[in-house]
């Protein structure tokens, strides 16, 4: 019977899928899962991170791998959607049987995937997803004392701390009285706006308003007119790269001239921002998590190797996060002494204390968060078409251009 044939085929598939994790040899490569958006609208960032993971893998394996065994990354495409990300994490855990997942790009996808990892008790080393709650055990019905039950670790700072480096620049040099906050209406944007509002109030800067817009807006002029009507000293923007460019272009057209335009990382540090905004990108300041000229060992080397291998303008902090996550993974696995069980890897993660091209990595607890790598952030500025590190002063490779004569800069 036909039905019998179909049934036996399904049965065979079931057997394969149920037991395909058992034939693993002890000498084969160690497989680690990576969750990234490789197709869909965020694929360009996913691609940059994947390239960086591969770059790191080559370096690690060339240097002898993990105690003699090779390292292998299994990529799962989350397509930028939380439900696919969830299914992808599940596949990595149950089909590929990886003992550790890393990656995690957009906040909502990372969060959904983190819930899966937590349920299966598989360690998840997040390297980009930035909403605060990812490393807050409270969101997973745990408390900050449950470190041994909490499987999420994060290499990158949460979005609320993106601007910490910027805060000192504002309070020590610019000393603005007022600020207006513009943000994209996404989880990243709203959370970032909220936390910057808090820090501004802490610094005694008056927040004149907070206004959101949807991604892909063509005409920002109404928004900018409303902002400029209030004459803020600083305009703070949380935007992705092309919205960022459109905002600056139209601000220039309207003649919006505050003391300083500040971007909250994300899009403002990317080469595409300058390419599209042109002269309007000049003297714009942005918080950033990383810059290739930072005096961190390996930063420049990573940046150059990336360009050598993949060409293009080179990676930004997203790539550095991924590259460093791969190095952390290798370090953690080396400290496992041959026992690559989930629990052992978790213990090794807890003990992590190392230097990466992205900065020092150590998972600590503070406030509501645990397993969070605490980092300082930096400030960059577009000066004569180049992105320069201007703050903190002792690390800077260019002088912070301030005050700014917009009439001259924009011409």
């Amino acid at each position, binding site marked *: 019977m036909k039905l019998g044939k179909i049934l036996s085929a399904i049965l065979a598939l079931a057997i394969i899928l149920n037991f395909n994790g058992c034939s693993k040899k002890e000498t084969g490569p160690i497989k680690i899962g990576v969750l990234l958006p*490789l197709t869909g609208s965020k694929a360009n960032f996913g691609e940059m991170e994947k390239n960086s993971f591969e770059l790191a893998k080559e370096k690690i394996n060339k240097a002898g791998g993990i105690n003699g065994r090779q390292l292998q990354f299994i990529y799962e495409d989350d397509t930028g959607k939380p439900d696919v990300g969830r299914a992808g994490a599940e*596949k990595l855990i149950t089909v590929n049987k990886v003992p550790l997942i890393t990656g995690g790009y957009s906040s909502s996808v990372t969060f959904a995937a983190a819930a899966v990892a937590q349920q299966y008790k598989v360690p998840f080393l997040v390297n980009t997803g930035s909403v605060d709650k990812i490393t807050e055990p409270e969101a997973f019905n745990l408390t900050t004392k449950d470190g041994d039950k909490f499987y999420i670790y994060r290499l990158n700072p949460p979005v609320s701390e993106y601007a910490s480096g910027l805060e000192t620049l504002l309070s020590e040099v610019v000393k603005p009285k007022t600020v207006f906050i513009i943000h994209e209406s996404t*989880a990243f944007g709203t959370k970032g706006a909220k936390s910057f509002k808090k820090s501004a109030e802490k610094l005694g800067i008056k927040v004149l308003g907070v206004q959101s817009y949807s991604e892909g807006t063509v005409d920002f002029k109404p928004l900018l007119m409303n902002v400029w009507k209030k004459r803020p000293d600083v305009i703070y923007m949380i935007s992705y790269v092309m919205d960022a460019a459109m905002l600056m272009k139209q601000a220039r057209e309207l003649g919006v001239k505050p003391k300083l335009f500040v971007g909250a990382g994300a899009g403002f540090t990317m080469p595409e921002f300058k390419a599209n905004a042109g002269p309007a990108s000049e003297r714009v300041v942005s918080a950033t998590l990383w810059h290739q000229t930072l005096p961190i060992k390996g930063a420049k080397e990573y940046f150059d190797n990336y360009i050598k291998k993949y060409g293009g303008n080179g990676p930004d902090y997203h790539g550095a996060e991924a590259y460093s996550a791969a190095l952390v993974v290798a370090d953690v696995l080396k400290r496992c002494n041959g026992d690559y069980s989930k629990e052992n890897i978790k213990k090794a993660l807890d003990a992590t204390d190392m230097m990466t091209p992205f900065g020092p990595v150590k998972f600590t607890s503070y406030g509501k968060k645990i397993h969070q790598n605490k980092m300082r952030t930096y400030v960059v500025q577009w000066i004569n078409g180049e992105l320069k590190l201007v703050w903190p002063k002792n690390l800077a490779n260019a002088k912070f251009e301030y005050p700014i004569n917009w009439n001259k800069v924009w011409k």
Partner: protein
Amino acid sequence: MKDINLKFFTITKYEQIIILLTIIIPLLFYDSPYMQGLFIFIMMWVVLGSSWNLLAGYTGQVSFGHAAYFGIGAYAAGLPFMHWGISPWWGLLTGGITAVVLGYLLGIVVFKLRGPYFALGTLATAEILRIIFGQEEWLTNGHNGILYVTTWVDKYPYYFIIWAIALATVFSVKALMKSKAGFYFLSIREDEDAAKAIGINTHKYKNISMAVSTFWAGTAGAFYMIYMGFIDPEVVFALHNISIITILVGIIGGVGTIWGPAVGAIIMVLVQELFRSAFFGLAPQWISKVHALVFGLLVIFVILYMAGGVVGDWDLIVKKFRKFRLKKATK
């Protein structure tokens, strides 16, 4: 096996086989939560596709905005949890009802419209809801979404819940279509003015169709909240990923057939997942990059060569296949 005759409809022996298979097959994959997850998604799309099919395929009101009801169902489960800590599980009851209320209210506007205007009207309402739910943070937590730590790690309970909902949806459509109402639905689809002329209260029956359809769509939304544990407006009110995919599920399987959307759901989920995972990692990686392309081509192919969908054109497909085999044999 024999057909089982119930008061409102019959369960044919084929349907009994299907029901049995949908119990047995997932049980075979007892050690693969990943596959179980896929089965859950298939069942969820069966619910959405069938609910759309009742309104569009049988009643002729082609909704391009089913995400509105799916989304409102999801938020009906999520909002009480977020604000007052009430378990989202209640959403399985309230989600459907909330969606019916919304459907009735929107119906006041969109049922004034016909054909492509109806399609556009429903599309616009879903988009407006998406924007409102993203903007009104005090009510919905905006784009930060609602998070709920799911009740079980094990997938079987979820599977059998959505399996029961899917069966209920399909058989409720079947029962309706066997009843007098079903006959009225069809006459509205074929010619609304003629239906009105012979004394059918078209407005009433369109609303009945809408109510049943939105009820199941809302229930599916509530299930999504419970199962996924995370929703935000861009996910549950999505134009492409919910509204359009719902229609494609119906089209691929067969519009205006009882089991069409179910078949469409299986094809949609499996084709997407096979390509996305590069045939479970057996094929080269680049294949995963084209999963959306393949799905688009599949849609074009089905519409061009199987206008009735896989179920609607089943006889035709079988015939062609036989001819093909015959040709091969004679060579």
